[in-house]
């Protein structure tokens, strides 16, 4: 009796049911928004009083003023310096192209192949040779050379800027702390958001393409270099200092040589980042393959597909080649005897001689800059055209029963309802609802940032478009998270799945953003769908990897303990592994949402409408003001999405 009474008096620390917690509050907010949507549909559009309509025209005037002052016969010093920079960038690309022309196609092939053979090994060299062959076969030799030159210029400059900064960041914690937030910011901005400002400053041309590419490619160069320098063990640095090395000697004799592998990896990453921008660079005057893709999308689909394929081939072969080189030069694995290094020097000299000879022969035999003898383009075009006709024929199985219904499903049950929900609910309700949800998810600071950013979006007059883009991003993110979560968990639990997914993920992660969209323009030509499918493909590999790593990272002892208490495999997964991997999974969601936004806005080029479409219009119709306004809205949306999803991880790791 007494015991029972005592037990009654002790309050049971019952876990609160979910509807009492934050999830419940979030559901409540959504329900309230739904009620407002149903009751006052279309009755509260963003008011003109809260809109600054003249941003666009102001920006247009600024652009005119800028180009007027730059193009006068005798511009002032600032403009002259600026023009000088722009011209230098333009010329850099031109010089590089001219260099390859001078080499002749034969010399270019021999130089590329032997360089990779000497420093990367046979497999990588074969890959490069195959890449050259396919550029020739696709009939895109000249375009490939142009793209490569653009990339070479951008990569060299990125490394020139990034490596010294990375070394600084690696050696000084204070500098590292100062640059990290800047780099973080640079990496969450979708490329589409800075195209417009760059074009305004540098006007359309290769120079603008180089700058755009650099903005994207410098951060990884800095980060990886810093990581490499930091990775050199402090003991070695201390030992060298104790023996009386100057700071410079420590850098050149200890840190740089020991970080060599990471430095080469940073070259590898910079190249990949640069390549993923070349297609977009095609929009603002980067010539070559990017240009062929963007021009061909509607007028010559086969050509767009060829150019896309060439970019993919270039990305993969460069990736493999630079990675092979990086692995080969790992200082800890490459032990050279004096004899061996003499042999290698001879080998290098022989390669150089072979290149020289080829160039001379090329000139004597008049090989020419462009490979124009034979291409398989027409032959391939036939097949590609047939394929295109098939996938777009409404009566085929593929179109009628697979791609078309899928596309329509996504539109009817995903994009459209969400879009009308966000756009047609009275704006104050949407704004406050979204901010409240941000608060519940991540806390006060992210919620305030969301409030300010969403207000900016409305203030510049992009509320409707931003809500449209936002609903596309939501749909794509949900799909990415589902795909990524399922495959990631599966891969973590099953060796075979993991092994099968790895090469697919590797390839998907090396491809440029726009390339994903190309096939779906023809496969699922329903508005918005190509952008969404492409963004899922683009972001899913990262999500898969993070989920897999998170689950595999759960300590074996914990799993063993759970198993020892008799948990089944499923219970271990649901009650131990997934909860413990929560931070990794949330990080995946954060990365996915940023990547999805980047691709969804690019989709504006091909019918996704909304903010991306306005940027595309800005670029193609010279509507600068409009483009910049949309860019600002994209940026604001990006910051909001990043902070809100990242804050969740922060709030948890601090708790």
């Amino acid at each position: 009796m007494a015991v029972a009474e005592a037990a009654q008096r002790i309050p049971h620390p019952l876990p609160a049911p979910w509807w009492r917690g934050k999830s419940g509050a979030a559901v409540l907010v959504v329900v309230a928004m739904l009620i407002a949507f149903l009751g006052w549909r279309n009755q509260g559009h963003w008011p003109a009083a809260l809109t600054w309509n003249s941003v666009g025209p102001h920006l247009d005037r600024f652009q005119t003023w800028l180009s007027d002052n730059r193009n006068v016969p005798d511009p002032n010093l600032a403009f002259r310096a600026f023009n000088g920079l722009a011209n230098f960038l333009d010329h850099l690309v031109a010089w590089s192209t001219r260099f390859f022309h001078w080499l002749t196609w034969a010399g270019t092939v021999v130089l590329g192949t032997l360089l990779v053979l000497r420093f990367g090994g046979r497999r990588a060299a074969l890959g490069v040779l195959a890449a050259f062959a396919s550029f020739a076969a696709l009939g895109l030799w000249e375009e490939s050379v142009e793209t490569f030159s653009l990339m070479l210029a951008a990569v060299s400059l990125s490394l020139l800027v990034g490596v010294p900064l990375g070394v600084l960041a690696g050696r000084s914690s204070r500098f590292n702390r100062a640059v990290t937030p800047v780099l973080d910011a640079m990496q969450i901005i979708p490329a589409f958001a800075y195209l417009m400002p760059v074009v305004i400053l540098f006007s359309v041309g290769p120079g603008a393409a180089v700058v755009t590419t650099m903005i994207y490619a410098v951060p990884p160069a800095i980060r990886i270099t810093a990581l490499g320098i930091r990775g050199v063990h402090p003991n070695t640095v201390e030992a060298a200092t104790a023996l009386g090395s100057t700071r410079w000697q420590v850098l050149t004799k200890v840190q740089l040589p020991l970080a060599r592998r990471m430095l080469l990896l940073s070259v590898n990453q910079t190249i990949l980042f640069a390549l993923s921008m070349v297609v977009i660079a095609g929009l603002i005057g980067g010539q070559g393959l990017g240009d062929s893709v963007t021009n061909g999308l509607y007028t010559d689909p086969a050509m767009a597909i060829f150019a896309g394929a060439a970019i993919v081939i270039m990305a993969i072969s460069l990736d493999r080649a630079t990675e092979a080189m990086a692995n080969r030069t790992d200082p800890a694995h490459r032990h050279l005897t004096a004899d061996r290094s003499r042999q290698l020097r001879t080998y290098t000299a022989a390669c150089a001689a072979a290149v020289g000879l080829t160039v001379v022969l090329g000139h004597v035999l008049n090989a020419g800059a462009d490979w124009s003898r034979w291409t398989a383009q027409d032959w391939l075009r036939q097949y590609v055209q047939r394929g295109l006709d098939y996938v777009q024929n409404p009566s085929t199985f593929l179109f009628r029963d697979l791609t078309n219904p899928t596309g329509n499903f996504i539109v009817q049950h995903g994009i459209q309802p969400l879009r009308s929900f966000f756009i047609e609910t009275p704006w104050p309700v949407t704004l406050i609802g979204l901010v409240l949800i941000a608060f519940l998810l991540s806390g006060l600071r992210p919620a305030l940032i969301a409030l300010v950013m969403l207000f900016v979006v409305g203030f510049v007059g992009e509320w409707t478009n931003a809500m449209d883009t936002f609903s596309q991003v939501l749909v794509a993110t949900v799909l990415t998270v589902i795909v990524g979560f399922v495959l990631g968990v599966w891969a973590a639990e099953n060796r075979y799945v993991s092994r099968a997914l790895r090469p697919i993920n590797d390839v998907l992660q090396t491809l440029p953003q726009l390339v994903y969209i190309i096939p779906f323009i023809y496969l699922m030509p329903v508005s918005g769908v190509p952008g969404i499918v492409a963004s899922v493909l683009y972001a899913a590999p990262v999500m898969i990897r993070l989920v897999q790593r998170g689950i595999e990272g759960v300590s074996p002892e914990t799993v063993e303990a759970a198993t020892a208490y008799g948990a089944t495999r499923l219970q271990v997964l649901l009650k131990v592994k997934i909860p413990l991997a929560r931070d990794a999974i949330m990080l995946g969601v954060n990365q996915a949402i940023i990547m999805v936004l980047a691709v969804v806005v690019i989709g504006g080029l091909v019918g996704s409408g909304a903010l991306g479409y306005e940027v595309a219009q800005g670029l193609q119709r010279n509507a600068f003001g409009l483009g910049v306004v949309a860019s600002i809205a994209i940026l604001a949306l990006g910051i909001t999405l990043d902070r809100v999803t990242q804050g969740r991880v922060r709030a948890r790791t601090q708790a």
Partner: protein
Amino acid sequence: MASSNGNGRTPLIRAEGIWKIFGRNANKVIGTPDVDLSRAELREKTGCVAAVRDVSFDVYPGEVFVVMGLSGSGKSTLVRTLIRLIEPTAGRVEIDGRDVTAASRDQLLQMRRHTSSMVFQHFGLLAHRTVLDNVAFGLEVQGVAKSERHARAQEVLRLVGLEDAAGQFPDELSGGMQQRVGLARAFAVDPKVMLDAEPFSALDPLIRRDMQDEVIRLQHETGKTMVFITHDLPEALRLGDQIAIMRDGRVVQLGTPEELVGSPADDYVANFVRDIPRSHVLTLRWIMRDAKPGEEDGPKLDVATTVKRAVPLISDSERPVCAVDGGKIVGVVDKQAVLAAIAGEGD
């Protein structure tokens, strides 16, 4: 071992009142009453960690000076302040007559290049260089020509018995061999002072003993002055002429091995030396008494003989044994003294 006290000689290393306080506002702690707080209290109050507190000592040429103490007592920090790998917060260091703490950047470099060298716990070898180039590294940063520095490195490698490994890379060697390379690198610049920061604590016990023998041999052959850190008492007793025992950043006792074992300054030190058999450390000097008239014709033993070694002779002898130092009788030892010394073990 060399004699333990520098009668009239000038010290090669002189440390006076060294402090190292880590943390923000470390400079503001010294000169306030806070310096007398215990480590934990200081951290509580200011967030600073006092790693080294008011340490002074002299090391004479040819001596091995051992710093020992438990983990976290400040040993590593102390040696690093000697050549300013860590800047001391206060205090003065003089090496070979020059003021290290006041040295300019350039003077400091010169000193690190020519006067001192250091051996590290985790070796700190350069993975991308051959053994030969690792050993020659100190000479390379000095700007010595390649052929010359390689010749010198070869020579030193022979000294540590690694002449055949010259062309290999550090990761191809065992831990013991790697530390020999570390030793060779330190010897290659022919420094006056060698700083050994727990050089053997990452090695297993057998190799460790080998390496201690190696250091004793090298030290005898070259007569180098050493500052040697360890947290292993037997190692300290084997190598040290003088031993400083540190606790929470302070030196709690500084003396010869005999002094530590024979008269520990406090419970901390006593605890440290408890398991050391006193007869292995104490010498006749420690237990002898003045000779009475008529005792001077007993059997003779050097005054530096350990009790353990003296036991057979003393127990066989009817008369007290005479302790001689340089041919002169300085005292006598009888059976009671030996028994008292041995009986003191283990309490």
